[in-house]
């Protein structure tokens, strides 16, 4: 276990949020890796917002099809039971609350459940793509991100400082150090799991958002 990369551990932990029969949208980056950890015997249907339900593995070399890509524009395959549809229908699924779970990355998350992940300070804005629709529409939104930015600053904040992607929409935050639920009523986070090698004080020292502690048995990831 200790040899696993941090990315893989995060993906494994996020995969524990999956349930049989779920329709799930996975963002670019670590969230994409979650697909590798769907438990045996569980059926999870992956949604790609460019118009596909039932994403399969990447194609073999000879299988590559320019007409079959995911939302990250990578060539993919489709599983039995898949369907293709247009972009308006695809986002109808998202906005209409039909996607059970969306897992995506973030630059900042606030203790009220706000998220910022589309405008990187000092960089040219590329656009929000489908992120704003996903955070506003999915039944449950899980953020997977590093706990701190490159300078060591907390990405869990009392208020986001970057322009928002969505307001009061995040349900769970998974970092390499801890897992927090968002208590939207109280507008605070709830620390429910932590890396056993880190003390509560160590978590506190690197977390700017307000949170209460209600540790559960750490879910094995």
């Amino acid at each position, binding site marked *: 276990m200790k040899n696993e990369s941090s990315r893989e551990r995060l993906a494994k932990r996020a995969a524990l949020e999956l349930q049989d029969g779920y329709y799930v949208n996975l963002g670019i980056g670590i969230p994409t890796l979650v697909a590798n950890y769907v438990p045996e015997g569980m059926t999870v249907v992956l949604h790609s917002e460019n118009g596909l339900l039932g994403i399969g593995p990447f194609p073999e070399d000879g299988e590559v099809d320019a007409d079959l890509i995911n939302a990250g524009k990578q060539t993919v395959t489709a599983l039995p039971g898949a369907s293709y549809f247009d972009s308006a229908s695809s986002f109808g699924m998202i906005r209409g609350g039909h996607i059970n779970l969306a897992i995506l990355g973030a630059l900042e998350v606030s203790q009220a459940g706000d998220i910022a992940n589309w405008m990187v300070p000092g960089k040219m804005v590329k656009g929000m793509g489908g992120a704003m*629709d996903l955070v506003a529409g999915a039944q449950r939104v899980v953020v997977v991100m590093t706990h701190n930015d490159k300078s060591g600053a907390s990405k869990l904040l009392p208020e986001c400082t970057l322009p928002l992607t969505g307001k009061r929409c995040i349900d769970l935050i998974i970092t390499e150090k801890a897992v927090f639920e968002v208590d939207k009523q109280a507008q605070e986070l709830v620390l429910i799991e932590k890396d056993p090698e880190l003390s509560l004080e160590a978590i506190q020292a690197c977390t700017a958002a307000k949170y209460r502690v209600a540790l559960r048995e750490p879910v094995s990831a």
Partner: protein
Amino acid sequence: MKKVVQSAAEALAKVGLNDGATVLVGGFGLCGIPENLILALRELGVKNLTVVSNNAGIDDFGLGLLLQTRQIRKMVSSYVGENKLFERQYLDGELEVEFVPQGTLAERIRAGGAGIGGFYTPTGYGTPVAEGKETREIDGKMYVLEKPITGELALVKAHIGDTHGNLLYRKTARNFNQPIATAGKITIAEVEQLVPVGDLDPDQIHTPSIFVNYLLKGAHYEKRIEQRTTR
């Protein structure tokens, strides 16, 4: 009823597009883009276009080709990706950009084609996207009012078309093509295969012929892949 034309250039000539027009272009990244119509638009040389398209192509393919020739004044997109030319023109102030969340973009285009005057979406509430727009609470949830998008011209690419203009798309190349086909004052479709009317199963048509004014079999399809990824 003669909708079939011999080339993308002939289709555009029939439309008589003016400088400053708004053109809706189907595709997601390079997937399902109307390659031949984009090339013909470049040949035509119309300027100051507002182009509504989810993405802006890459430097040397897709809509990037119209950036090279500085024919685009404004892009309405959800994500412009890695396009250096785009970035330079944007930073130089030559190119205006309106970022629209992908689902809102698709829905605004659908609304334009379906005669909806505006709609309330939860997407973007509390974000920069909602600035200057009407917001309202409906049944305890906050929404933003968004307006329909239409254009003088819609350009789409389908896999198969019949001579009446019925269209079938293939796999994820459908994407924005289906809503965009409904939202042009004039819609031109290019297809990989053109079949006689009656060859398609009426239950399986993605875009009914009513939306298509002209169609053509594309002269050549490169179908370039942006992120070739294999197992």
